[in-house]
């Protein structure tokens, strides 16, 4: 079991075997790209050559007007034409998709470029989650973040500012658990001086000092105060309720926490807009904290201390002599604070890669050669890809010029 875990059975994406496979893929792309690039540079003519040119059709009789039809048809199919008069007859050379191999290489080089961008962000970037309660300020410094994924080369990236939430708004449609509008009015501080102030909502982030600040999560946080038998305050703060349960039309949020510095465990359910029904059960008629009610199941080392409900401002006497007070409810906001230095590189190469990929997919390098002389007409050609479809194109060409007597042979 331990070996299976070590191998990555339980954590696939960060497992060694997945990372090794990813590395092998990257090395493969780099090696193949440069091999192909070298081949293209050493073949500057970029053409398929005449060696191996296949005769598709040999028409024993000359059709008057064939040259005009051929040039018209090939031109319509976006071939670049070159007509040469030789003693043996008239040679029509048609080419298209000459850039296709370069498009493919451009796409693969772009993958390498995107990889460089990703590695840059991995090494020098920063990404962290900071939770701030409405009306409070949180120091956006190491240690305050819930989790950080900072750059491998610069372990001590510090945004160097504090983040505050002046107000938070969430609008709900009746009977719907998910909000339709969410706005957090954010203030950026340094040494208690307001440096910036802006509304932040999902899809509407702000940038400060190169750091992107965006709202990714929010929830409700009851404010609790715990006092001991001598009225000494042991805990005083908001408890962010993280585990949300939305069961329309009964909206409630549940969570379980152990109060810091104590062994007191609280299992809580918060009804933001509570209504007590005739049978004594509690429901919440909306998600907005208009009339909050908290049900608490308090225990200490598996010994029950209290089980019941509380309204804001209500004191809860615990059986160990302490007092728990539920004061009010506020929103907490989860902010993603990030810096991705590799993103411009990734975007640039994504753009180039898109152009390359479209070229590689839509272009097909092919050549058609038609030799017209007094006695016969020969139609030949070569295609890098889609040879079956290319043969059809030649057959169609032969049919269109109404020579009819040519035998379309299979490509060798």
């Amino acid at each position, binding site marked *: 079991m331990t070996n299976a875990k070590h191998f990555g059975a339980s954590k696939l994406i960060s497992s060694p075997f997945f990372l090794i496979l990813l590395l092998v893929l990257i090395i493969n792309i780099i090696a193949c790209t440069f091999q192909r690039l070298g081949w293209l540079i050493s073949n500057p003519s970029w053409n398929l050559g005449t060696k191996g040119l296949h005769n598709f059709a040999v028409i024993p009789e000359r059709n008057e007007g064939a040259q005009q039809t051929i040039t018209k048809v090939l031109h319509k199919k976006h071939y670049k034409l070159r007509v040469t008069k030789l003693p043996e007859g008239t040679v029509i050379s048609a080419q298209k998709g000459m850039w296709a191999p370069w498009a493919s290489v451009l796409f693969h080089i772009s993958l390498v470029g995107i990889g460089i961008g990703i590695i840059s962000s991995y090494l020098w970037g920063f990404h962290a989650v900071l939770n701030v309660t409405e009306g409070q300020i949180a120091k956006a410094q190491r240690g305050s973040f819930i989790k950080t994924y900072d750059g491998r080369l610069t372990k001590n990236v510090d945004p160097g500012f504090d983040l505050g939430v002046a107000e938070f708004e969430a609008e709900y449609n009746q009977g719907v658990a998910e909000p339709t509008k969410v706005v957090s009015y954010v203030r950026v501080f340094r040494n208690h001086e307001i440096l910036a102030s802006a509304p932040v909502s999902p899809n509407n982030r702000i940038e400060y000092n190169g750091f992107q600040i965006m709202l990714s999560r929010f929830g409700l946080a009851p404010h609790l105060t715990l006092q001991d038998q001598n009225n000494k305050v042991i805990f005083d703060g908001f408890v962010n309720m993280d585990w949300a349960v939305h069961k329309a039309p009964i909206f409630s949020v549940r969570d379980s926490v152990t109060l810091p510095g104590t062994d007191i465990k609280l299992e809580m359910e918060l009804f933001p807009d509570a209504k007590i029904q005739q049978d004594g059960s509690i429901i919440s008629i909306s998600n907005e904290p208009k009339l909050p009610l908290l049900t608490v199941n308090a225990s200490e080392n598996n010994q029950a201390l209290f089980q019941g409900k509380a309204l804001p401002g209500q004191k809860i006497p615990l059986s160990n002599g302490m007092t728990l007070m539920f004061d009010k409810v506020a929103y907490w906001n989860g902010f993603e604070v990030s810096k991705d230095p590799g993103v411009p590189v*990734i975007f640039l190469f994504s753009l180039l890669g898109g152009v390359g990929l479209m070229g590689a*997919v839509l272009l097909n390098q092919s050549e058609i050669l038609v030799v017209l002389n007094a006695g016969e007409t020969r139609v030949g050609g070569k295609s890098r890809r889609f040879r079956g479809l290319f043969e059809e194109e030649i057959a169609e060409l032969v049919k269109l010029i109404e020579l009819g007597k040519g035998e379309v042979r299979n490509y060798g």
Partner: protein
Amino acid sequence: MGRLDIYLVLTAVVVYGLATVLFLTGTIFSKERVTTWAVRAGFLGMALHTGGVILRWWISGHAPSNLYELNSLGGLLAVAYYLWNVRKRQDLKILGLVLFPLVLLLIGYGFTKFSEVEPLKPEYQSFWLTLHIIFAFTATACYVLSFCGSVIYVLRGFKIAAPYLEKAPGDRILNDLNARLNALGFANHALMILTGAIWAQQAWGSYWSWDPIETWSLITWLVYGLYLHLFFTLNWRGKRIQILNLLAFAIIVISYWLVPHLPVRNFL
């Protein structure tokens, strides 16, 4: 007015069902006229379906977002792309034999997840999400059509089925067409991943989080990349490349239907 979009899609489903029956009849009894009528039924179904999708989009005021709307759009794009190809190549009509039952399954699955028009969650209110959805289903339409080609190719290998599938394009042409469709799907898939990453950054603050849906989307893209390399570079042809294509499509099915329902923590 509020229900008209649903009635239009339901009528389209009936017409697609009729097209399926006509395709089966036309193929079994080798009646070209019946198959032509099946394609005509496809056009009628598409017209009704387009009306339904556009109306739903207009009523909701946003791009398809729930499973019913997404499956409906996916089915519509697959049919539209099929019919567009049939107009260019008549011998591709036979693909409808596989395509229409698939589309019926897709839309039917969507109806099992039906929900009324809802306002979009804030993180879904993004132009990038609309682009992401359009690229995703355009890619799927290409892959679906290519899958249909592979099914016909493989079925033709069985003596019992071969006489009924004579009108389909030849093996070499089917190989090429499938590769072309997959290449186009691959390009759209790349754009889907890119636009999805930009949307994810706007909505959740991270371009890529290795969540199961993202990861399986990448795996699918890599499998189609493998297909294209085997086809173009190593010249794989015939049954083995078609079977790989069928497997690649199976991964799409896993990515789209199975992965979103898996418990995330067990995977990551």
